[in-house]
């Protein structure tokens, strides 16, 4: 079977949006793809050793809320202090109870499967992200580094 290549650009740093890049990468690796992930802007949060990701109901009308709150709860109410922490806690409980892997677990599965992870150097400089806060298994690079992989790849996704 000929080897296929996948690249994913991960740009989002919230708990919910951490899932698509890691689920697709780990699965593709299991199917025999060579996978390269490029993390830029808020996506760099996904490379932190300490993954403290949150999900916000604010400005997210598609997010299901308990007791049908998404139907009647005033939009401004989702901006109340503590709402984000509450929704993040509830989301984490739901994730666990439904047998969905944690983000850290999926990231580890990707690393075990030799998924290549590249952190965007420009973002690191821009936001003064400390190298020691990021996991050790990554390389750093820029747009040209991304295209070096993307140009040879069968599938390129921007998430």
């Amino acid at each position: 079977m000929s080897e296929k290549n996948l690249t994913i650009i991960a740009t989002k740093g919230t708990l919910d949006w951490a899932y698509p890049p890691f689920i697709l990468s780990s699965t593709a690796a299991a199917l025999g793809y060579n996978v390269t992930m490029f993390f830029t802007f808020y996506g760099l949060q996904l490379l932190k050793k300490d993954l403290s990701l949150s999900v916000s109901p604010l400005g997210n009308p598609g997010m299901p809320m308990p007791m049908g709150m998404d139907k009647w709860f005033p939009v401004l109410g989702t901006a109340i202090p503590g709402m984000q922490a509450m929704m993040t806690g509830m989301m984490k409980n739901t994730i666990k109870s439904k047998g969905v892997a944690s983000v850290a677990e999926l990231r580890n599965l990707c690393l075990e499967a030799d998924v290549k992870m590249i952190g965007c150097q420009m973002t690191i400089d821009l936001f003064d992200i400390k190298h020691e806060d990021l996991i050790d298994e990554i390389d750093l690079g820029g747009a040209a580094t991304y295209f070096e992989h993307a140009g040879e790849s069968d599938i390129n996704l921007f998430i």
Partner: protein
Amino acid sequence: MSEFNQELDARGLNCPLPILRAKKTLNAMGAGEVLKIIATDPGSVKDFEAFATQTGNELMASSEDNGEFHFLLKKA
């Protein structure tokens, strides 16, 4: 169901964990050996078909029993 060399209990696990665990287990098995997987994720039925097609490991059997899904994968 016919004979198998190893069994993987993927009950209660959701996408993509059953596939990932199966892949990991297959890695440690020899060619021609058969892995039995038990899962509860309904999505795993289509996913194991797709996994077999793309990896060349043969899906010998796929069946449902009381909300549990049973698969037999033969390592290529």
